[in-house]
């Protein structure tokens, strides 16, 4: 067991030595891996944060029901009675047209406009809260309400949140594809780096083979090289994203003051970072394995 562990330790030392000899080649590969991994990581973090914001700031879905202009007080009462007995409605609030007009007049800048009107242009309205907040239920209720007499318009006021959610879902799908494409790019970078390593150490590989080394023995330092390349590349991506967040957050502080919403993006969670390092190391190892396998196959 000790001999086995020593063999792995020697392979790791060889891999680390090769990382710095020559240093520039490895540095270029590391920067390429780091920037390649940083892109989907940053996008993922932003989408995750937007999702959190949407969940936090989108209120419970409410339905705004507007009566027709010519609806009478009796018809308004009838609609209210229907809402009282409706199984899908948890609560509602009435806004009579006169009250709405007074509220409008009270707003700065609107008083003069309202004073010029000969009659109240606003309809009677209800703000309805539902028991079930699902999109399907809201749509069904909206259709039902529209069919009621003297109901002019029914609006579901969470439309913007749903649109944003759809956009985020689209973003997540695009991110998945991007991450897949960039994972292949990382594989290709590691593959190419190890091919160069194999070329540089071709004599050594040949000699090892002639002295009775198994493919496992020959492959081992290259695998460690791939793992280390992936790990450091992942670390660079982590650092790049963290640095970008610091810069972005400085700008977002000003923006958040305007909208009164805390817009700053939190730092990369530790589990995300560790997951990134693991994924990068696995990609590095896989790229190295494929690369050495190709070299050994060609040599054979």
């Amino acid at each position, binding site marked *: 067991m000790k*001999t086995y562990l020593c*063999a792995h330790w020697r392979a790791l030392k060889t891999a680390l030595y090769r990382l710095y000899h020559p240093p520039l080649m490895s540095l270029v590969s590391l920067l390429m891996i780091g920037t390649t991994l940083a892109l989907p990581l940053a996008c993922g973090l932003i989408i995750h944060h937007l999702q959190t914001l949407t969940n936090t700031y989108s209120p419970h879905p409410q339905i705004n029901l507007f009566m027709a202009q010519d609806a009478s007080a009796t018809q308004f009462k009838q609609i209210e009675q229907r809402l009282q007995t409706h199984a899908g409605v948890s609560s509602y609030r009435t806004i009579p047209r006169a009250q709405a007009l007074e509220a409008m007049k009270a707003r700065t800048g609107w008083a003069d406009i309202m004073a010029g009107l000969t009659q109240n242009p606003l309809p009677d309205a209800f703000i309805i809260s539902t028991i079930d907040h699902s999109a399907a239920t809201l749509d069904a209720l909206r259709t039902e309400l529209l069919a009621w007499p003297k109901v002019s318009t029914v609006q579901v006021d969470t439309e913007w949140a749903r649109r944003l959610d759809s956009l985020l879902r689209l973003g997540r799908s695009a991110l998945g594809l991007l991450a897949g494409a960039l994972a292949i790019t990382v594989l290709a970078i590691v593959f190419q780096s190890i091919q160069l390593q194999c070329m540089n150490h071709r004599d050594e590989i*040949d*000699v090892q*083979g*002639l*002295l*009775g080394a198994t493919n496992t023995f020959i492959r081992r330092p290259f695998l460690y090289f791939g793992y280390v390349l992936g790990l450091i590349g992942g670390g660079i991506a982590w650092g790049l994203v963290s640095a970008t967040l610091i810069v972005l957050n400085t700008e977002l502080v000003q923006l958040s003051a305007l909208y009164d919403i805390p817009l700053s993006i939190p730092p990369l969670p530790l589990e995300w970072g560790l997951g990134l390092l693991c994924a990068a190391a696995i990609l590095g190892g896989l790229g190295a394995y494929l690369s050495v396998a190709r070299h050994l196959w060609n040599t*054979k």
Partner: protein
Amino acid sequence: MPYLIPRPHMNQISLNNVFHRYPGGKEVLHNINLTIDAGERICLIGSSGAGKSTLLRLMAALEQPYSGTVIVAGHNTSTMSTSELPYLRRQCGLILDDVKLLPNHSVMAHVLLPLDIAGIDRQSAQAQALSVLETVGLNQYTEHSPMSLSGGDQQRLRIARAIVHQPILLFADEPTTNLDADDAEAIGALFRKINLSGTTVILASHDRQLVTQFKPRLIELNHGKLRA
């Protein structure tokens, strides 16, 4: 793990009706029948192009015959799997042009390599490597690059690397080429010493001094055929 265990045998190497030719080339070996027993010292002789090196490479399992069978340490080199081959190689020592010296490895690293491959623990390996370097007279150059050594010392290093894991078979192709008379004599003495320790030594050479000094069983090749 397909560890190769030497099977009981008297004949360490046996070639039966071996023919060999390179793709698109002419026949290099013609109907070779040959047995080599454990502990023998053999010298393959013949003019340039007679097929000495090819025969040596077939016996070292570096190549497979075009037809016929080559049995080394009880294993048919044509039918053994690629995963078994490394374990056969570990029973052989090779002093061939293919087994190059590596410029960025020290003398000690060269000698440690076969022991690392064999999975010997580092402490024993270092002791064994030092002992072999002492045998070949390179113990004062352990940290030197092989490129800083003389031709004779480089050949000693190749020998040290080939014998450090105590192989049962040692193959050497023209081991005294480019060496002066003194170095060649020293190398010859070294081969004799290795053979006396029980290793079967098979050389391919047309160095008369080495042949005289080594006193081997001579196997003469002429245009790919064994001379009776």
